[in-house]
């Protein structure tokens, strides 16, 4: 019932025990590699690295995915104008059948509105996709669509937090920080969790990648894709005053003095951890800028992604995933708007077309690129917003929020490719078949990563917390 606080200093016995038992399976090898490269400490002692909160931890069971890329679409993309094709809209346009007569945020009372976009079938799966996602459409045979998502409230702020934290208030840890808490990171020279967006941060800002009450090491580091500065991701990453050689000499002296001090104390895990952490910090200074250096990509790759800011984020996401970052959250935004897809209120046609154009090619390229590099199997990609939009119209050309039903898709990470799970009603208003709440989605993501959402707990303010609160049901059917 009481599990040990993972951050309490370990006794020597525990250290040895852990070395032998649990950690062999994942990450240790890459971790050792990471520590040997980059001019590691001469004194060796790898064991103390295990005191690092980001040291790789064994999952609860064999994982399908090792990493997650979340392509977050804040503002609420309209399901019936993107991936949830509803031909019935045409036949009943202008009508308001009882089934869609549900309260929306702004209490819109209009009838059904036909999508301004054409849909076509793609791939072997014959999946219908709207014309605003021509590139993603070509990858549909890799995608697993969940058409039956639903969430609690139709307000952006709360629903965005629900999507990223599993809670309506900003007081809980984010999905990515739970993942790092549960699994550690496979690269000790980079943060375990990186959040990115072009210019505007999604509403709620830091809370969306925050660690709340989890230890600070699990906080997401934020990168603004528009500027792409490596030292943004880690503060004080760069030593602006000393050349490498001088820095190295300084670090060596520090290690020597710390060793003398440690000898006098005979034994102290925390002191040992301090020595290790300093060495890691030293290596990070060089590993992080390398990740950001897109000039190392081939011309072909760069062309495949295209040159939108979001696409740049997609490419960066792949580079991070490749280096063992556990979770990348890449939020969409154009025009510096924190809930980009909300342009749907007044103008689905113009707003959604521009937004899709800004991300379509990059997303498709990311899927292809991950597949080509053999990374897709171990990487779970999740696309979606905090809710969807009503099939009825708001004003003349818009759609109000719809939290009763919306679409999310996944790729890689052991999910079945080319399938659709769950369904909304015939007009796309509410999830009716195989309904999936956001908590269920979270439970499923954790499951893919080898974590039992009911067992991934953290004791805080007198009780154990989970990402899924008291809910969540893994959608087992979508896994291969």
């Amino acid at each position, binding site marked *: 019932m009481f599990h040990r606080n993972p951050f309490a200093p370990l006794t020597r016995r525990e250290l040895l025990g852990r070395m032998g038992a649990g950690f062999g399976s994942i990450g240790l090898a890459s971790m050792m590699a990471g520590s040997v490269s980059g001019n590691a400490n001469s004194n060796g002692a790898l064991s103390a690295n295990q005191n690092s909160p980001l040291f790789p931890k064994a999952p609860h069971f064999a994982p399908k995915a090792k990493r997650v890329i979340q392509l977050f679409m804040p503002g609420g993309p309209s399901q019936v104008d993107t991936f949830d094709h509803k031909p019935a809209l045409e036949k009943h346009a202008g009508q308001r059948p009882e089934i869609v007569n549900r309260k929306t945020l702004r209490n819109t009372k209009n009838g059904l509105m036909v999508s301004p976009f054409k849909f076509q079938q793609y791939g072997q799966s014959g999946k219908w996709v709207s014309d605003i996602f021509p590139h993603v459409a070509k990858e549909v045979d890799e995608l697993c669509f969940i058409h039956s998502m639903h969430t609690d409230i139709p307000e952006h702020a709360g629903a965005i937090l629900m999507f990223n934290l599993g809670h*309506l208030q900003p007081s809980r840890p984010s999905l990515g920080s739970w993942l790092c808490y549960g699994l550690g990171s496979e690269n000790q020279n980079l943060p375990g969790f990186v959040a990115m967006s072009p210019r505007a941060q999604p509403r709620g800002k830091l809370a969306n990648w925050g660690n709340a009450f989890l230890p600070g090491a699990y906080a997401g580091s934020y990168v603004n894709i528009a500027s792409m500065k490596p030292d943004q991701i880690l503060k004080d990453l760069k030593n602006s005053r000393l050349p490498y050689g001088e820095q190295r000499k300084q670090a060596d002296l520090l290690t020597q003095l710390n060793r003398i001090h440690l000898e006098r104390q005979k034994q102290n895990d925390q002191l040992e951890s301090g020595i290790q952490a300093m060495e890691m910090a030293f290596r990070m200074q060089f590993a992080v800028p390398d990740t950001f250096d897109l000039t190392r990509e081939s011309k072909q790759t760069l062309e495949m992604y295209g040159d939108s800011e979001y696409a740049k984020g997609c490419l960066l996401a792949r580079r991070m995933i490749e280096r063992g970052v556990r979770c990348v959250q890449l939020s969409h935004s154009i025009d510096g708007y924190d809930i980009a897809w909300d342009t749907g209120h007044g103008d689905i046609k113009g707003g959604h077309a521009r937004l899709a154009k800004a991300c379509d090619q990059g997303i498709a390229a990311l899927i292809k690129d991950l597949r080509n590099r053999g990374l897709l199997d171990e990487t779970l990609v999740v696309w979606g917003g905090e809710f969807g939009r009503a099939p009825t119209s708001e004003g003349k050309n818009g759609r109000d929020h719809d939290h009763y039903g919306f679409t999310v898709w996944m790729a890689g990470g052991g999910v079945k490719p080319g399938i659709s799970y769950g369904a909304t009603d015939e007009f796309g208003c509410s999830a009716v078949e195989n309904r999936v709440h956001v908590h269920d989605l979270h439970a499923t993501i954790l499951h893919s990563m080898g974590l039992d959402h009911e067992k991934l707990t953290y004791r805080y303010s007198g009780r154990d917390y989970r990402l899924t609160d008291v809910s969540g049901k893994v959608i087992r059917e979508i896994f291969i």
Partner: protein
Amino acid sequence: MTLSTSLKSIESSGDQVKGIPSYPVIHVCLVAVSVISLCFWSVCQTKGDDGIEFFEKKIRPVLVEKCYQCHSGDAKKLKGGLLLEYREQILKGGDSGPAIISGKPADSLLIGSLKWDSLEMPPSGKLPDGVVKDFEHWVSIGAPWPKSEKTPIVNAATVYDWEKVRQEHWSFRPVVRPSIPTENNSEWEKNGVDYFVYKRLSSNALRPAEASAGVDLVRRIYFDLVGLPPMPQQVVEFVKKYSNNPDAAVSSLVDQLLESRHYGERWGRHWLDVARYSDGFGGFNDGSAMPDAWRYRDWVVDALNRDIPFGEFIKLQIAGDLIGDRNAAVGTGFLALGPTYRSDGGDPDSVAQSKSETLDDRIDTLTRGLMGITASCARCHDHKFDPIPQLDYYSLAGVFNNTGVHQGPIAKDEEVALYNQHQKKINDLTNRLKQLNQQFKKEKRQATAEEAGMVAELNQDIAELKKNSPPKFATAHMLRDTGSSNMKVAIRGDLRKTGAEAPRRFLRVLAGDKAVPFKNGSGRLELAEAVAAPSNPLTGRVFVNRVWQHHFGNALVRTPSNLGKLGELPTHPELLDWLVCELMDSGSIKELHRLIMNSATYRMSAQFDSDSFQNDGGNRLLWRMNPRRLDVEAWRDALLSVTGELDLVMGGPPSEDLNSRRRTLYFKTSRAGDRFGSDKLLRMFDFPIMRATVAKRPVSIVPQQYLFMLNSSFMNDRARALSARLKKSSEDPAARIQLAYRLLYGRPPREDEINLGVKFVLRQDEAKVDNWEKYCQVLLCSNEFFFLQ
């Protein structure tokens, strides 16, 4: 929604009520409810009506037996958001709409489900046809239900024998002064503390560590009491006294530092963790600033420095506005500085949830912070482990539901009146001026010469008044009473679904079955008295335990904010109670420090010992002092102190300037922990997020901290300042290194340390940065500077 679609949605969703916080996830099998007791309830309500009788005989028993496990307030997991405990609930239905349409069995979801036509209910097995027919009949005759039974049956099943419950768990029992176990003594003990500690050690074949060396001890005492390192001269003096008469040396240093004003700053900060103190800014939905928060911080510092009686210290923070003068009201910042959540778009569920979260903050801070009891767990259901019924949660919530937060004046009445009068004058004149201008506008004309003169005069008067305005009187965030009504139990934590009325009164686990309802206003003063009462076994234990934690690095109960059944047991229960008795007798927190710090236990060295470590690696029995890392405040203050830059001015508004030379206590902090540069620095070094009362800070050692130490301009600046200080002291490198070690570590360097230093600073430099500066940065980044023995 059509029937068929709604049926599908129930079937597949497995929905639960959302937006309610969870109980501990440790799902120890919680056997749902003694459902039978529900049966007793009902019968008395009937009036001989045939329908009712039919319901009681044929329907209710089935509901209780077959449905309530998933569809009642006591369900372990409520399914489909559907409650079946009273008629309104059934008519209203769950996530899929009404469960029955009265008079229309064919259209009733419930009937379809029982027939396994659509849903298959109950899932454990289809009910006999006869029973399903009974339900059909019942719906067709209008679903009769006892009329008077409108309140839902909430937690009716849980019955507490309060007297028994209060004896069952150690922390709920009264504190009885234990006798000091002197029988098995050694030469080691110095006061009562040590006898208790020695008893546990000796019975576990452990020996206390040797007394610390003077240089270590003086450093420990300084950081402990004032959060600052001793100056080299102070070290020398102490070491000399300590070698002659250790007891007197310790005792006089402790006395001296307890009288230092910086004592309040150090221990005030510890208390601010309990108070989840911040300057506001909790992020959206809770984004307001708390510009006067610092008044409460200064109040705490001052209260500790003045050593106000312990009971008063507690009481004023709950109900200072109802007890003392204006200054006393500032103490209620303890609760007033918490979050006040709002809804973003006014969605009614969201509004209710925001209110519920706000109330929960007050209850959580009060109960965990002051009494080590997790009452918040009883927000949605009876506490699963501790004897706190949901009803009691709403008894407390009622107090805070009648309590408001405002920025109240803390100046003298005359000062407030003077300011207000002055403002009124300005307003009057401004209104007069407005009227005139409106008149001109309305009459579409220019002012006459006379009127123009009036306008000019008015403008001049207003300017004059504004110039001479007395300063705005000081304000602080404080509580005030706003009403005196009871709340109703919120079913599953949802304030929109209410149940039985919860009288405002104290927790029955402490007050017993006969807990008296609060009578005055919100009841907050009575609540304060109950919390602070010397007879309350929790408040004293929790406080003493926290004090112990800060002296030793670990508390006697290692879950300092949870003394309930899920908390740890005390390692030294008798010692804890003995200290509580001492505190209650003296009422003096400073006396408590004296008692602890003059013990031989406190004086033990932190030296590692492999045998003892094998035996008790966690040092639960206190065979040595725990080595510790400094918290971020002490570490940063020490950095500024050893370079000679620290500004020791006390109190006043906080600063977010990272280059501030003031003590770290005066940094601005946001509740969200991400708004200010100061937040980011603090959080990097384990400053906790101030969203909820903090039991203990974690200690994380991560590379980001070293990037800061090695590369930040703040650290570069400190290195430069230290290097300048050293250079000024002497021309001789060895002498400079000597000084550095005495300043930073309170000890002279060893020969190898001098040699390494000299070699480093006399090197041919590759960079533009001075070698001494680089060397100083190394010393400031060292473990020895960051860790305490």
